[in-house]
């Protein structure tokens, strides 16, 4: 197996637990889209044209409320703002790629493809074939999302009872973030843990903000807290 194939399959493997968590959401989306009055084809195509879970859920809600098109578009834009953060975060690791590759990987850039990829890149640094990892993770999620949407459309409201499989999603994120905190160098550990906790607390406080704005606000607070603490820490070190 070539290096690029290996990176690709590593990406697919890293994505598997997230697939389990996402699958029920895809099915629920498919059923909701039908209920909102979208055709089978439109319901399915939204999963490949927009390809963004939360935005699709909110869109079906707005469609069923007969909201005007520009409101739906604006909502999609605001809900997906957080992807700019992912874009910024991954950018240093993808800067050597051609525009075609950048475009392909951007299309596949969801919460669930971002998480394992950035964890991998921060751990291993940039290698020649790193981008294949994100491609593997992204394509695995994309395929899973299309299939689960189709199944949801097919089954409609006859979706099996909640097996709590969606809990695999936060569990996978926990399994990814905790080791990052564990292995952080002593000087950065306090900043890292503070960033994590402050982001989490703000996410709770801002939970009721519309358009998932709470998520962005929380992430920004966490990033600022971490950066400031790291700065003051390294200054103390220089002065002492």
């Amino acid at each position, binding site marked *: 197996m070539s290096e690029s194939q290996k990176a690709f399959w590593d990406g697919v493997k890293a994505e598997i637990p997230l697939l389990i968590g996402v699958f029920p959401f895809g099915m629920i989306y498919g059923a909701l889209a039908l209920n909102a009055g979208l055709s089978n084809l*439109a319901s399915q195509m939204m999963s490949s044209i927009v390809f963004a879970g939360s935005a699709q859920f909110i869109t079906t809600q707005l469609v069923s409320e007969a909201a005007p098109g520009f409101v739906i578009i604006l909502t999609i834009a605001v809900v997906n703002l957080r992807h700019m953060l992912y874009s910024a975060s991954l950018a240093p690791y993808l800067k050597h790629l051609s525009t075609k590759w950048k475009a392909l990987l951007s299309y596949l850039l969801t919460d669930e493809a971002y998480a394992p990829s950035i964890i991998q890149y921060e751990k291993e640094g940039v290698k020649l074939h790193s981008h294949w990892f994100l491609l593997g993770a992204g394509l695995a999620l994309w395929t899973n999302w299309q299939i689960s949407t189709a199944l949801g459309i097919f089954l409609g409201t006859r979706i099996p009872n909640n097996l709590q499989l969606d809990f695999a999603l936060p569990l996978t994120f926990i*399994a990814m973030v905790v080791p990052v905190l564990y292995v952080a160098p002593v000087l950065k550990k306090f900043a*890292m843990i503070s960033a994590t906790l402050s982001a989490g607390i703000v996410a709770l406080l801002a939970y009721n903000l519309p358009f998932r704005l709470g998520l962005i606000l929380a992430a920004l607070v966490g990033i600022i807290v971490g950066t400031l603490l790291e700065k003051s820490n390294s200054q103390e070190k220089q002065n002492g």
Partner: protein
Amino acid sequence: MDNIWLVMLIGGLITFGMRFSLIYLFGKFEIPETLKKALHYVPPAVLSALIFPELFIQDGTLNIQLTNFRLLAGIVAIITAWFTRNIMITILVGMAALFILNALGVN
């Protein structure tokens, strides 16, 4: 509602544009050191902002009682992740914790 296809197409283009924006622009400008440092805090901050509501919010409200099984199972998973640093074990232990709590908790 206007033409849903047009709405989806524009919504999709905007989404793609935001995902593409900084990946495309990076390297075309000088990035300040502080900003580069700040980017390393994106993963823990974002992941934690995704995790906390899943554990603490139940049916739309904050629940920090012992009846919140997702919170308890999440804490078990955090402890497991800290000591094993193994993704699969963490997920399995967390799921098992939730199933057991649900099974025991049925009145």
